[in-house]
């Protein structure tokens, strides 16, 4: 009894620490301590779980924890910040997989030993198993796509119908397992898991790289939900609370992401938009792109009063963030006010660009969100766009025929001068021509991001 009570108290404390930890993560000042608090909650919950009555296989358990921890620790320490989204997807998939496996153990025990479960519990176990399995296989595909292991998207006619059919089949199997209870055949349970795995793969394959942030966020929410459901099955309050908190937080985050792209979640999941390279025609963009030399840009920036830098994922690909910060410091030394404007969907994850800039040493108080900075563009003497394209395309405001119409954008076109660093003349991932590039006050600085910024640094130094 005493041990039971100790376990309950510890789980309660862990749940409190998780919530307070997440709460502290809502400000950059306290965020670091937030994760540490949550970490202690996890350590506490894990340690007391060894004290559960009638625990067997403790040796195996320690081996599994040790092995999993070491592999995860080493990989987590090594991963580059640019590759963070796929790594988070992978860890998330592992959590979903764990939840599904817990359900598997429960279901196998039920079938094998006639260990009956209450109907609601059985139902939750099955639903949790499905969600967790989908999160596992879906996250693995998301990882493979972001890592570049799967390069093409899979789109074919009737894809949604096939997925729907598969979903119906899984529902049917799940219903049969719940209805038959202890009389379910083992192969039925196995088939259920296999189909769920396949389903996770099929729904993730057609989704393009640019939509991955939404998908990762969604799978994160799903894993939380699966953990909560398995928490019901095991009667574990810590799992219910932590899982549900993550489930709802993840849902909110997913909605915010989808909103930033001006698309519904259903549209992200079922339209295959982010994977298409040819898009609607829309109005023809008039004018020509006007090239500029780095030395001229350096003069413009060096003698400016206000400069706004808009970094996109292309900057991270070119690994130019450190150079950008070096340039910023030079400009600041010349009393130029420099701000960074970040679009919510820049990067491969919500807030990814902030992490990449933070890594380069850019203080977070120089970084501004779309809503905070859009009013400042008319006062910007020079707006430098590096590696961003669709998020600064004014066509999103003006052309109802454009596939990106309605997406909130950074109003770079409203600034006094805009300079775009770009490798070539191609369109963005959505395949839409960018009206900004053709605007009268826009100049194009062609070349590799890192090389061009280095050149700007050299030129500004000579002013």
């Amino acid at each position, binding site marked *: 009894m005493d041990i039971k009570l100790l376990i309950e108290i510890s*789980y309660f404390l862990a749940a409190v620490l998780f*919530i307070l930890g997440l*709460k502290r993560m*809502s400000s*950059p000042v306290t*965020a*670091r301590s*937030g*994760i540490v608090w*949550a970490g202690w909650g*996890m350590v506490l*919950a894990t340690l007391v*779980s060894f004290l*559960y009555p009638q*625990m067997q296989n403790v040796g*195996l358990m320690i081996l*599994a*924890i040790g092995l*999993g*921890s070491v*592999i*995860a*620790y080493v990989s987590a320490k090594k991963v580059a910040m640019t590759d963070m989204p796929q*790594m*988070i997807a992978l*860890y*998330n998939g592992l*959590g979903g997989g*764990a939840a599904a*496996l*817990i359900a*598997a*153990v429960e279901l*196998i025990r039920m079938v094998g030993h006639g260990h009956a479960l209450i109907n609601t519990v059985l139902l939750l176990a099955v639903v949790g198993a499905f969600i967790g399995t989908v999160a596992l296989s879906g996250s693995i595909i998301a990882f493979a796509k972001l890592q570049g292991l799967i390069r093409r998207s899979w789109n074919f006619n009737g894809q949604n119908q096939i997925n729907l059919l598969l979903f119906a089949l899984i529902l049917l199997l799940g219903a049969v397992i719940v209805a038959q209870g202890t009389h379910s055949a083992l192969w039925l349970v196995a088939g259920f898991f296999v189909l769920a795995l396949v389903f996770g793969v099929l729904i993730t394959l057609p989704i393009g790289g640019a939509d991955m942030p939404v998908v990762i966020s969604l799978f*994160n929410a799903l894993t*939380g939900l699966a*953990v909560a459901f*398995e928490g019901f099955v*095991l009667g*574990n309050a*810590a*799992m219910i*609370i*932590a*899982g549900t*908190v993550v489930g*709802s*937080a993840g849902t*909110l985050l997913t909605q915010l992401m989808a909103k930033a792209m001006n698309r519904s979640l259903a549209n992200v999941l079922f339209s295959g938009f982010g994977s298409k390279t040819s898009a609607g025609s829309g109005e023809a963009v008039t004018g020509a792109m006007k090239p500029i030399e780095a030395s001229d840009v350096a003069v413009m920036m060096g003698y400016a009063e206000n400069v706004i830098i808009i970094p996109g994922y292309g900057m991270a690909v070119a690994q130019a963030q450190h150079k950008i910060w070096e340039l910023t410091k030079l400009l600041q030394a010349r009393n130029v006010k420099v701000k960074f404007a*970040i679009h*919510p969907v820049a990067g491969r*994850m*919500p*807030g*990814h660009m*902030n*992490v990449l800039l*933070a890594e380069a*040493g850019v203080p977070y108080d120089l970084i501004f*969100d779309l809503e905070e900075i859009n009013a400042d563009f008319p006062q910007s003497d020079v707006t430098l766009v590096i590696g961003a394209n669709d998020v600064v395309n004014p066509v999103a405001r003006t052309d109802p025929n454009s596939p990106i119409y309605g997406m909130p954008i950074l109003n770079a076109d409203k600034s006094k001068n805009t300079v775009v660093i770009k490798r070539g003349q191609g369109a963005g991932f959505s395949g839409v021509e960018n009206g900004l590039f053709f605007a009268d006050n826009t100049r194009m600085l062609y070349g590799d991001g890192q090389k061009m910024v280095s050149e700007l640094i050299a030129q500004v130094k000579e002013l």
Partner: protein
Amino acid sequence: MIEGFLALYIFMLAAFTGYEVISKVPVILHTPLMSGSNFVHGIVLVGAMVALGHAQTTLEQAIGFLAVLFAAGNAVGGYVVTERMLEMFKSSKGQ
């Protein structure tokens, strides 16, 4: 054991808590936050431990082992990447 409606109440309140806690997070922290919440559902580790601890047949043991392995990977990996990211966020005043 948590039963019936009590569980439902926990579920509802926890859902609101998650929504409220996250709704005030600035965009700049979205990635660490997602990663942090990813770490929090690593609590699935305690469930996996119970599943393995009560496993009887070899099949159950094997699945339970995998569950603990996965869950530990989720928890540790999630923690380390979140901490690494948050460590980098600095204000100009601090420099």
